[in-house]
């Protein structure tokens, strides 16, 4: 009897064990299914329907990309172009500037912790407070910079209402607001580099700048790739700055893809869903390419 019962009992406890282990994941998986999996598939489904909920195949995608009869076609392509422009310029800025500052901090001059804390500070402010402040700084006629230019006898610059100044303003605000994160992450990478390699390089007579380019940067490559991917994805989600600072102007040159998606959200959710999928696919494609590049470099 005993010899028969034992394996059965054993199996049962194993099952219990497995089941309990799974239980821990249940709350997370339930929420994940409800607020991620379900919307993901329902979003795809919605993008194939029209106003009345009828199945229309790829009609929405066709309209968005090619159908010149509808405003949202040009809106979306313009918005996508603006988002890509923002990504193309903001990402290098958000790598190079934080990297430069992180290297300065890594030299550990007096009070470097204070400077690091200070430069990281803006990231904890909410976007609307940041934009509200910068709007007052940059405004024509009543802004701080305007008054400063006037005091120096220089001509007025319409920072928020003319190009390329509107873009420049957006880059300044974005860098000011978000660079802290990258400074800190890159700084952590720099900290992990064994300081003796510098000393070795110094013994070899290499200048400091040369050491940075030949030793530091290659050793930091992994960290830079992480920061790069994070920054690219964050930059694709550009929304708050142009919405609140320039309202997409002048002449919609700063109206980014997400603004177009949101502006269609209430009136034409099926179009907005298709646009979001298109934007999302581009983001996935870019991160896949990135990953492939990173892998090839590692090999």
């Amino acid at each position, binding site marked *: 009897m005993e010899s028969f019962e034992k394996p059965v009992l054993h199996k049962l406890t194993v099952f219990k064990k497995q089941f309990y282990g799974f239980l821990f994941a249940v709350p997370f998986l339930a929420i994940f299914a409800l607020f991620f999996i379900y919307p993901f598939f329902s979003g795809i489904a919605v993008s194939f329907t029209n106003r009345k909920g009828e199945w229309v195949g790829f009609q929405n995608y066709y309209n968005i990309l090619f159908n010149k009869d509808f405003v949202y076609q040009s809106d979306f392509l313009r918005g996508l172009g603006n988002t890509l422009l923002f990504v193309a310029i903001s990402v290098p800025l958000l790598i190079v500037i934080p990297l430069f500052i992180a290297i300065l901090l890594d030299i550990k001059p007096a009070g470097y912790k204070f400077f690091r804390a200070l430069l990281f500070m803006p990231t904890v402010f909410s976007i609307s407070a940041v934009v509200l402040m910068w709007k007052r700084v940059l405004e024509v006629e009543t802004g701080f910079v305007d008054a400063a230019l006037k005091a120096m006898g220089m001509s007025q610059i319409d920072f928020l209402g003319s190009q390329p100044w509107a873009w420049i303003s957006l880059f300044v605000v974005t860098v000011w607001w978000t660079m802290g994160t990258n400074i800190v992450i890159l700084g952590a990478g720099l900290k992990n580099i064994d300081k003796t390699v510098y000393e070795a390089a110094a013994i070899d007579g290499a200048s400091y700048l040369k050491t940075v380019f030949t030793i530091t940067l290659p050793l930091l490559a992994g960290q830079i790739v992480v920061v790069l991917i994070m920054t690219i994805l964050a930059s694709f989600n550009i929304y708050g700055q142009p919405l609140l600072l320039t309202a997409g102007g002048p002449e919609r040159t700063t109206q980014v893809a997400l603004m177009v998606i949101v502006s269609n959200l209430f009136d034409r959710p099926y179009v907005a869903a298709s646009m979001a999928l298109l934007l999302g696919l581009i*983001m996935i494609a870019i991160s896949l390419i990135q990953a492939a590049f990173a892998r090839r470099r590692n090999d």
Partner: protein
Amino acid sequence: MEKKPQKYKAKFNIGERRRKIVALVLLILISLLCVLPLLWAFGTSFKKNALTDIMSIIPREFSFDNYIKLFSDENSPVLRWLLNSFMVSGVHTVLYLIVAALAGYAFGVAKWKGRDVVFGLLLATAMVPSVINLVPLYKLITSMNLNGNVLALILPGLGGVLYMMLIRQYFMSVPKELIEAAQLEGLGQFGIFLRIIVPLCSSAFMVAGMMTFIGSWNDYLWPSIAMAGVESKYLTLPLGIAKLLGDNNIQYGMTMAGAITSMLPTLIVYLILQNKIIESVANTGSKS
């Protein structure tokens, strides 16, 4: 022969001292540039006539009028917005840590059939940009009748994969021997989770908690959609300040007071916890 390396060492030190000075000067310049707008906004919020006294950083005529106006104006309940934001971000963070810790245990420590398959699928979804779910999520909360409800801000983010994976990674670094010893002592799964794993990984919660809180605090896009339709006093801070910004508003100094008021609480929290926060951010970079 023995002197040679020392000589180089000395040279290295001189270079290092010079480098430190250059770095210090550059950092001072950069920092000044970054703090200038903040100082100006701070000064402006105390100006009696913000519009006729634009340039100065220290107000020519000092007054609290802007703050008095801001707090007495029923259209800009800034303190209420702050409270709402703290509540939403706080509740969200606590719930997320509970849910994510349990899941982190399930995927990192516990063993069950299909665990790695499910985790692999979760890992794959981390690549899906959140923008894809924006529209259907809006439709979902509409059908759940959660428009304008704080639950719409708190719940969806609880399924976030990123920091769950971070917590899991910390959990996995707990030595197996400890877990086995606890098992021998008769601790069950939940006991192991609560008594062994969680206390050993408090830094994981610090990191994930801070990042979740800051993320939730600064979120603008989703709240602006989910909270469309609520009375002004139920808004979160970013939405409220955006309203202040969009309102036809001639109270120039008052809007600056609004910006400063909304920055202060996070600033204070940041000043107290700055080392922990910076450490958290540094860690997210290396773990992901």
